């Protein structure tokens, strides 16, 4: 009989895992469900629904930290931060546009469990760079903690890094403490139109290598630029290369002037200011231009920045992929025509010469059960990762098979 446990506090989480361990009954760990469709499709008879563990424990703006329970909705966290002019600098994406609006809203636990980071990743780091400490229940049914509430901390292993991006396969987080940062006063975006992927990559590298502290560098081919809700981008009729500058007013204005001068040789320039600029980067963050049609496959590839445009060109030609670049060329978002094997072999072959990894973000449940969703690892690394899993969850009761088949 399948059941859903809905604990309302840490000790009930511990009880549920204790039972699951005794019965060797795998649990699906669910925060608010927005990312249930992310990762391998796996079988668990029971689910552990954490929605009862919600709310901010403490928020200390002058210490730049916030601590919350795992199922705290992102909207609640973002509202609290906005009130004090702060933000999550790693800019976590909202997966609902891609995975379906029907799913629940995102939770802070899910954001860290999936290590989701947006365009500012290139300047401010990933989710994994912001988690300072956590409390959790391991698959051994033991409540433990790691880290703390301060940034400078090398006391013991940095398990905050390990738990971030572990997709609920090591331990059930019951409390998370993370770093927050001041939100920028002003955001401008410099747009260069009409570049091909190679030229766009050079322009992005020039901007990233300048002293202007670029906080986002993306490239949209013409067809995808047309899908933007930002009118200038939509009507551009050509590709758009975008560079974001943010910070204190006078600084942003001056950097914007200087960056425009340095990029003048690349092509026609335009600027987006506050509202449009923010909207544009939300679209990039959430990959909204790839949302429709809903049956297309979506891949997310991380490669060296100079390699992204080559991968995009290769796959556009061979597989009819549509896509765009973020992270100064290092993040490739792809949409492919539907197919049973998600074209995983040619996609992964395309990045092999450069190094990096490819994640199948959207595909049918069947496909996600049969195709490796995450980049397969060389045998010694896979074996080591499996031993790490065993050290937390020897009976494989927490999200077993979500990352790797059989573990």
């Amino acid at each position, binding site marked *: 009989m399948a*059941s859903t*446990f*809905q*604990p309302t506090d840490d000790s009930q989480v511990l*009880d*549920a895992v204790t*039972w699951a361990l*005794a*019965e060797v009954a795998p649990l699906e760990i669910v925060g608010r469900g927005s990312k249930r469709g992310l990762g391998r499709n796996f079988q668990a008879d029971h689910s552990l629904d954490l929605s*009862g563990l919600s709310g901010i424990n403490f928020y200390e703006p002058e*210490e*730049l930290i916030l601590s919350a329970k795992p199922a705290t909705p992102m909207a609640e966290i973002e509202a609290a931060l906005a009130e004090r002019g702060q933000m999550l600098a790693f800019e976590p994406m909202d997966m609902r546009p891609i995975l379906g609006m029907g799913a629940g809203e995102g939770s802070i636990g899910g954001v860290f469990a999936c*290590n989701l980071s947006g365009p500012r990743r290139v300047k401010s780091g*990933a989710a*994994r*760079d912001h988690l300072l400490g956590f409390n959790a229940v*391991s698959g051994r049914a*033991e*409540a433990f903690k*790691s880290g*703390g509430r*301060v*940034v*400078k*901390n*090398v*006391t*013991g*292993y*940095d*398990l*905050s*890094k390990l738990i971030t*991006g*572990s997709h609920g396969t090591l331990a059930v987080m019951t409390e998370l403490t993370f770093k927050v940062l001041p939100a920028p*006063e002003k955001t401008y975006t410099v747009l260069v139109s009409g570049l091909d992927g190679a030229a766009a990559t050079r322009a992005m590298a020039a901007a990233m*290598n300048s*002293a202007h*502290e670029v906080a986002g560098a993306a490239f949209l081919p013409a067809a995808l630029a047309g899908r933007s809700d930002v009118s200038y981008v939509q009507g551009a009729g050509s590709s758009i290369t975008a560079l974001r500058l943010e910070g204190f007013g*006078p*600084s942003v204005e*001056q*950097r914007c002037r200087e960056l425009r001068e340095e990029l003048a040789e690349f092509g026609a320039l335009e600027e987006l200011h506050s509202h449009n600029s923010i909207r544009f980067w939300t679209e990039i963050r959430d990959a909204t231009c790839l949302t429709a049609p809903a049956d297309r496959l979506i891949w997310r590839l*991380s490669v*060296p*920045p100079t390699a992204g445009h080559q991968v995009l060109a290769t796959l556009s030609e061979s597989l009819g992929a549509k896509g765009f670049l973020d992270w100064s060329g*290092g*993040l490739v978002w792809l949409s492919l025509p539907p197919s049973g094997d998600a074209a995983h072999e040619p996609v992964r072959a395309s990045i092999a010469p450069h190094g990096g990894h490819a994640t199948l973000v959207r595909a049918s449940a069947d496909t996600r059960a049969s195709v490796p969703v995450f*980049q397969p*690892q*060389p045998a010694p*690394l896979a074996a*080591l*990762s499996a*031993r*790490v899993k*065993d050290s*937390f969850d*020897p009976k494989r009761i927490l999200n077993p098979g979500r*990352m790797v088949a059989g573990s």
Partner: protein
Amino acid sequence: MLMPKPDEAVLAKRGEIIAALREIVPGEGVIAEEDEMRVYESDGLSAYRQMPMIVVLPETTEQVAEILRYCHAEEVKVVPRGAGTSLSGGALPLADAVLLGLGKFNRILDVDFENRAVVTQPGVTNLGITHAVQDQGFYYAPDPSSQIACSIGGNIAENSGGVHCLKYGLTTNNVLGIEFVTIEGEVIRIGGKHLDAEGYDLLGLMTGSEGLLGVVTEVTVRILRKPATARALLVGFASSEAAGTCVAEIIGAGVIPGGMEMMDNPAINAAEDFVGTGYPRDAAALLIVELDGPEVEVDYLIGRVREIAEANGATSLRVSESEDERNAFWAGRKSAFPAVGRISPDYMCMDGTIPRKMLPEILRRMSSLSEKHGLRVANVFHAGDGNLHPLILFDANQPGELETAEAFGGDILKACVELGGVLTGEHGVGIEKRDLMGEMFTEVDLDQQQRVKCAFDAKGLLNPGKVFPKLHRCAELGRMVVHQGKMPFPDIPRF
């Protein structure tokens, strides 16, 4: 400090081990003479000394793999060592262990400006990376004070920080990839010039693991463009409370300085005696706030910080108007350790972290602990991130003073934990803070960490005796007590 008991069986076959290592690393790469091994007998925590059994200095990853494979098969312990500047005894040799030095891994392999990455061998110094890229206006951001000497491999093992980490992050935030060798001799590569290693974040786990999980043989770091400009403020306060509030308000105003350092009165005076660059001797606390970035931004932020400092009753305030003046502001801070070294025969450098707002409280506690133990203390802090470096002054030639200094240091670190902080911010646990781990972690917490160690090194051969106060056998840690099914739970809502 109690170290694991040397294994007599291993000591007995020392000759055989030397011969085997010479097969792997020919020529002068194996050192077995006592005189020649002496330079390796301690690291930056020089109160502790121990001769290694043998020193080996390989030059290639393949040699490292062979050495480790051999030691694993023969159950010989291994202590990795970079430049030996650790302040926590992480690289302290063991009597029955091979000391594996990475000094010959001293080449930079690839400088890639387009991808903003440098690939290097682990023995290259921290500053060596910046030197390789600075002619193009780039630098490697984490800047431990030991940067001319410490190795990037050691930085990874300790997750080292520095003055500029407040804005630019610690080592862990600036490393893109590594190659490492497990104790079984398996070569593993994670990350690279792309962002975010996929699968479990073993890169993040290895960073700060103090040489207990693997031997790092190659490193890829990200480099940054040098900020256009930097200026500093030197601000004196009549009380540490006022200085502490000023720090909190700067951060609260949304300003993240490139560096924000604080010194207390004894440290100010020691530095002033030593370099004499005009620190206010009567100030109870001194702040150095450095703003870096585009010129307009720096000028604008200098104004903001000045307003905040004045509102908090600054008793003196100077703004640097030239590079020379900025460097002069830093000269005293940078020479704080040797300056304190002049006013006391010996000193011990501690490294706790507290939440910023607890600065005044920890200073109060330190001065009463100073009275209790009868030893003086001078303080320098990375104030922006609450990382303290109390320098405890003592004289090792006076019987009992070293022990008193250690007890004083232990009390300070316990106070840090009590105030919501941690035992070590950047120097590592090593042997120095090993026995204090229980102040911060429960047995369950520590057992889970040791289980992770078991996933990498089931025989416990890599750098044993460091970090963990109690060594458990992996088989023992793997055991589980299963509480038989209490289902159904009356208290958990089920559907």
